[in-house]
């Protein structure tokens, strides 16, 4: 394959050309309630060529038939030449790399019969159904993937990688009369078959939570001190802040540039944030990004001050900074764009108990059903919450929606505990039609001085 790609590359007349080819084996098994909904194995393959002529724009051609590779190299080059740009596109230098990174497959899922995968997820699904007859519906999915990946560029980089991935997810729906609640479990690992074993407890906990929420009151809307659990804190830093750190958002937009000026204070000295594509064994971890740049740990906020951002080769050249290894493509169907990898809030000090000891009345918001941001405005739906009363976690509450302004909220992060953990969840990040891209988030417990917690607002 390498030789085939290098031959095609040599035929390109563009000033810069790169070719990515992927072959992916996936299988998935889904249970809904007691019924197996689907069990299927697929194979997806294709490639993407990106070409750039001096003084021109990017030409991108993607395809599923490898026979078409030479023709698509020509097409990408032609598309590039059709676009004249006033302001030339430059690419920051990256030394050429040659690497064969065959990640440990940790039990190659391609050798495991579909029937065995079915037995595994059937057992996890059974854990949820066994919790109570109030659990009226479940959804449990096993998914695996092995991708063989080739990358060659006219800058001299030649890469070959094999990457495993495994995801397990469960949703339990509990119902009593008209009230419906759900509990979620989600696991995503850059591992193989062995990584999927012994995961039943998490599924059971999700179903127990759904049942418990049936009796929980909705949180009373208002402003409270809010403590985020590591899961929600991770989702928050990814969605609300991480996306603003992606330099493709910053470099052409003067307002964003001003908002994201390096050296600007974003929070109190307790706050440290970064993105680490080289952290071992996580879903967002890869040796190189999809432009052949090695991944790294990139500090974004250090002691409350903005110190960095995430780059592709193009955005790095534009802002006069160094590439950070954050140009990623969802698959061969897409060109790489600036993306996060494993994004984190750095560790603080003390325990969760220390964090809430002096909170008289507050909300402990846990796990996430979802989140969305629009520039500096965000909205997050916690999966569940607890009231904090007189320094202790108290009753379970539901419908905990956090809404606010990013900059105000970052600035109100007053304490961070020392219990950092990576949240190895499934799902992923969506941007510009490319999703879900595997990413990981990590954080300790985080305390926000005051935030708006939604619920129905009394008229």
């Amino acid at each position, binding site marked *: 394959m390498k030789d085939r790609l290098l031959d095609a590359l040599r035929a390109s007349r563009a000033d810069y050309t790169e070719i990515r080819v992927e072959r992916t084996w996936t299988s998935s098994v889904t249970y809904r*309630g007691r*019924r*197996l*909904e*689907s*069990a*299927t*194995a*697929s*194979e*997806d393959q*294709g490639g993407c060529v990106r070409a750039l002529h001096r003084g021109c*724009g*990017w*030409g*991108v*051609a*993607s*395809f*599923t038939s490898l026979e*078409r590779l030479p023709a*698509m190299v020509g*097409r990408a080059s032609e*598309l*590039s030449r059709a*676009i004249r740009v006033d302001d030339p596109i430059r690419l920051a230098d990256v030394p050429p790399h040659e690497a064969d990174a065959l990640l440990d497959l940790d039990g190659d899922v391609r050798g495991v019969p*579909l*029937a065995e995968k*079915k037995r595994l997820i059937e057992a996890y699904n059974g854990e949820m159904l066994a919790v109570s007859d109030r659990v*009226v*519906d479940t959804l449990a999915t096993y998914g695996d993937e092995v991708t063989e990946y080739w990358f060659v560029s006219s800058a001299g980089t030649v890469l070959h990688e094999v990457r495993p991935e495994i995801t397990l997810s469960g949703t339990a*729906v509990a*119902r009593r009369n*008209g009230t*419906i*609640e*759900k509990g979620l479990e989600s696991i995503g690992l850059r591992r193989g078959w062995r990584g999927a074993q012994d995961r039943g407890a998490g599924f059971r906990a999700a179903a127990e939570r759904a049942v418990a929420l049936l009796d929980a009151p909705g949180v009373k*809307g208002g402003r409270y001190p809010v403590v985020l659990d590591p899961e929600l804190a991770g989702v928050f830093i990814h969605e609300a802040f991480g996306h603003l750190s992606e330099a493709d958002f910053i470099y*052409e*937009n003067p307002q964003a540039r001003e908002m994201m000026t390096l050296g600007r204070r974003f929070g109190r000295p307790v706050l440290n944030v970064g993105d680490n594509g080289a952290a071992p064994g996580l879903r967002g971890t890869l040796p190189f990004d999809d432009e052949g740049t090695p991944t790294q740990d990139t500090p974004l906020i250090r002691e409350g001050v903005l110190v960095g951002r995430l780059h592709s080769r193009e955005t790095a050249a534009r802002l006069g900074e160094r590439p950070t290894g954050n140009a990623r493509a969802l698959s061969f169907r897409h*060109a790489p764009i600036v993306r996060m990898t494993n994004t984190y809030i750095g560790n603080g000090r003390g325990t969760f108990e220390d964090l809430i000891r002096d909170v008289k009345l507050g909300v402990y918001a846990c796990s996430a*059903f*979802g*989140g*969305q941001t*629009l520039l500096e*405005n*965000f*909205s*997050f*739906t916690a999966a569940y919450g607890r009231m904090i009363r007189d320094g202790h976690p108290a009753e379970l509450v539901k*419908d905990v*929606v956090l*809404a606010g*302004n990013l900059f105000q909220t970052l600035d109100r992060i007053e304490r961070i505990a020392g219990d950092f953990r990576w949240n190895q969840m499934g799902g992923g990040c969506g941007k510009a039609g490319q999703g879900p891209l595997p990413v990981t988030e990590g954080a300790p417990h985080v305390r926000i001085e005051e935030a*708006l917690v*939604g*619920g*129905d*607002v009394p008229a």
Partner: protein
Amino acid sequence: MIERLLDEARRRARGADAIWRRVESTSVSFDWGRLKAAGATEEAGIGLRVVKDGRVGTAGTTAVVAAGELVDRALASADLGATVELALPAAAPLPDVPTHSDRAAGASLDDLIAIGRALLERLTRDGCQVSVAIGRDVSETRVANTAGAHAAYRTTAGDDVLMIGDGWDGCDLPPEDRLDALVRSITDRLERALRIVEPPEGALPVVFTPPGLAAILLPVTQALSGKAVLQGISPLVGRVGEEVFDPRFSVTDDPLRSGRAASRPIDDECVPSAPLPLVTRGSVRSFIYDLETAARANTQSTGHGQRGIFSKPVPGYTNIIIGEEARGKGEAVGELGGGLLGDMQDGLVVDELIGVGQGNVISGAFSHPVALAYRVERGEITGRVKDAAVAGNTYELLKKIGGFGNDDRWYGARHAPSLLLEGVSVARR
């Protein structure tokens, strides 16, 4: 390919159906006003479903594999599958629906660039960043089954999407008058957003524009899917014939709308297309089903099987038409608020919300910060509100609709007017 595959499957299973789809597309995007990239894709794949001993299995691929190998994989999947009595439809006459435009199919990269430049020129102004994306897809679909049904059709789609504002899509390239309407709509929204005002607070009348209706309608479309019925989570289950909504409210799914990107003569399981009234005069009439959900619910497929190359079919909508009876014809982008603001003392016009689709959607309860909303005072829009959130329950709010706007239009695959809803909870933050 599809014939050979079905021949092979026929020998080894009781029945089978398959979809083959090839998509060729070209797109250009102007990011923050600058044209920087053009893209082309060529993609083809095949999805197979087999029925053996009453069990269903699927397999899909974009790689070149022998028919036998794909059938092997589908049969392995069927070995594990639950039993279901799939009734593969026989050959039937198909309705005629235009889904192809020679103009869109023949459009060159330069044509797309020219449309983009013209839009940019008309939208550019000081202090604003404009992004435009234009795409053109040509796709060819073949569906067939071992019961003798088969069909092939071609579709084209053209669309352009603007980050700050609005979009258009259809089978053709956007005609001149639609582009005019798009420019007017965006300009209007932008100009009225320049002044920021304080949000009101309390239980207030709110006009949801056609794009703003997403949060209100999502619970309803989820609840009208046969899938939710089977799962026992649809609040509308067992309520066919009951007046659940305002008597002027209706919902229809119409796969035969001329020139719409979601239109098609046949669904992905060889069931011929037909319009389907789901809610009429406020009463629930029907749910959408594909072959499998229909078999499980002891009913007929409504022709809503939707299928990708790699997944089994699921019930999915085509073009959703919302409105009063006899509406659903409007094309004009009307005035913001759809003429519903006259009697409003204090309230909001909501055009976009943040976080739609999060949380326990199907229950009807929603709570979202606004992305784009305007304050209305004494019948006039006085400016944009930023730090506000709206909350309520779709089923409560749609029981009595305060008014239907005169601005019916397409937004994506949904056709709707603005709706005035009373007593929406509005909070500041």
